[in-house]
């Protein structure tokens, strides 16, 4: 989907177990990330962050000279970059504490390499968005920077609701997004009773992005569950 530029991001890994650090480095490198630093303590992490500012920090909670929550607060004083906790502490209280302090994600050990890679990529994508993303569909393009659809050379403007719905669908492109999640994206919390409005908006979006709106190929319905945005070539 054109996110190769994210592989250059500088990732700081902090964990007191060298073997785990080695393994995570190996996982990240296997996926193309090459700018990786590692630290075995909070002090070492702060020192490294002072020299080269990381663009993502992956922290353990339990460190020999402090805890990951305090380390995150101190790292955030130096620079505003995302933090992912990778820890054996799976209690809800720990998760809530981490998120409450501003963590971007929380992965509990043990984890599958694929899961860690997905989460790292998602954080980087959210944080370091590509300028003016243009999304190619079968028969049209969505230009999010201009909030418009280009179909057959014609520029069709998107309404605010259509934009919000397409953005939510694009964030999970290729996957089903539930009716409830779409209603929440367009109408905020407690989005009950908007199902008919949602269907009307989806119909209008199809008229704008589909070549044949009555037989959609880019924005498909998954009956009873939600909708899926299918990008060109996927």
């Amino acid at each position, binding site marked *: 989907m054109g996110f190769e530029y994210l592989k250059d991001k500088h990732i700081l890994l902090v964990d007191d177990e060298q073997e785990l650090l080695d393994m995570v480095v190996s996982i990240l490198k296997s996926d193309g990330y090459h700018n990786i630093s590692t630290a075995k303590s909070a002090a070492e992490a702060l020192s490294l962050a002072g020299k080269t500012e990381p663009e993502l920090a992956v922290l353990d909670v339990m460190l020999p000279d402090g805890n990951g929550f305090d380390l995150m607060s101190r790292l955030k004083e130096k620079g505003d970059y995302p933090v992912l906790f990778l820890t054996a502490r799976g209690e809800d209280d720990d998760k809530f504490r981490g998120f409450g302090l501003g963590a971007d994600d929380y992965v509990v050990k043990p984890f*599958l390499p694929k899961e860690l890679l997905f989460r790292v990529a998602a954080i980087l994508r959210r944080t370091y968005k590509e300028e003016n993303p243009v999304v190619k569909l079968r028969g049209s393009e969505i230009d999010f920077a201009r909030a418009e659809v280009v179909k057959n050379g014609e520029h069709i403007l998107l309404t605010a609701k259509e934009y919000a719905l397409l953005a939510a669908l694009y964030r999970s492109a290729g996957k089903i997004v539930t009716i409830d*999640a779409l209603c929440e994206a367009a109408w905020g919390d407690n989005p009950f009773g908007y199902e008919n409005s949602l269907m009307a908006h989806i119909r209008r979006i199809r008229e704008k992005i589909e070549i044949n709106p009555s037989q959609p190929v880019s924005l498909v319905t998954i009956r009873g569950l939600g909708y899926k945005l299918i990008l060109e070539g996927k």
Partner: protein
Amino acid sequence: MKSVPKLIRRFVGILLLSSVLLITLNAALLVFIFSGYRANGSPWKTAEETATALQAAEDGYVLSETAGVQLRSQGAWAILIDNDTLKVVWHSDNLPDVVPMEYTVSDIADFTRGYISGYPTFPAGTDNGLVVVGYPQESFWKHMWPSWDYGLIAHAPRIMLWVAAVNLAVIFAIYVTVNTKVWKSVRPITNGIQALSTGDAVHVKEKGLLSEVAFHINRTSAVLQYQNNQLRKKETARANWIAGVSHDIRTPLSMVMGYADQLQRSEHLTEDDCKKAAVIVKQSERMRNLINDLNLASKLEYNMQPISVKQENTVAIVRQVAVDFINTDIDGKYPIEWLTGETLSVCMVSADRDLLKRAVSNLIQNCINHNENGCTIYVSVAAEKKECVIRVEDNGIGASDEQIDKLNTAPHYMVCDTNTTEQRHGLGLLIVKQIAAAHNGRTVIEHSRFGGFAVEIVLPFE
């Protein structure tokens, strides 16, 4: 305690009934005793009979034999006072010497009401004079001034009723006062016993009539509190032990999983070795799930899992879980069909969102775990009268009647208090049951109409 006022009411009832019975019994006894005395014959009647039996004869007066016998049998004597001379003109043979033989009108008025020389006397009039029958001294007591206010006699029934009523009221007041005092000393005791049954700590003041009972209640409370604390400590230690072990195992397992996952994709290994690595990954995942399940199950079992309940739309929650599984099922081996009615978009219940998601995930994961060759999973939410029913079922291999019966009734080994080698099924269903119970709901395990296995989570709206 609600039974105490009831007890008092019953005692008051018994008291009132006893009072009424006592009065009736007394009245009956009085009637019986007095009627017994009346049967002996009245001295006034004897006087009348003597007067009738005393006949004038040529040489004075003669008393009939019968009347004479009657007088002697009672130890009585008789005289006849002449109307004109006021002198005794006849007397019985046994007349005491102290009895005068001449009377004034004033004397007659006196002995009519009372006595002659200490002998109780009873007069009866005849044509010729006044017959007076005298009885032995101290055989009768005579009321000398037998007169009452007319109003007193006229209102006697009402007055008696009033007296009876006042008596009853006084008895009642005494009873209530005494009972109130007893109740005041009993109340802390009953409250203490009631609090004991709820497991609260109890301290009753040890004074008054029931101080000994209070002492024993306090002692029982202390023992119960101690035992509860010990039990809680044990449960906390057990849950903490499970949490600690699962924490310590996570990091090493991460490395097993991580490296095995890399190995299974390695281009340098043979296909056979890659398969072995894949088995390690799969079994590591099972261990990870087991650790997570064990931790949650023990916390739910010992009420250590914080549950934050608020109004949630179950349709949205279940739909999200279903979609999450669809989105990760890359090879389409486990398609999910959404069978919720199109008209039902909202079904609100008080629930912990994360726990409910966990329960539904466990059910879908169960379908996947038990059907290695793939199956279709059917998910639905239905709103019934007072309940919201979440149903997850499949068309897979299913289970036998016996297995389903066991799953519905036999306790899991984690919560079973007897040694058993049978209940070694996974923790997934136990957690679903625990989560349903934590929401005051229940689970129903049965055969699916699609041929496989079906589980319902039933949650009450209230």
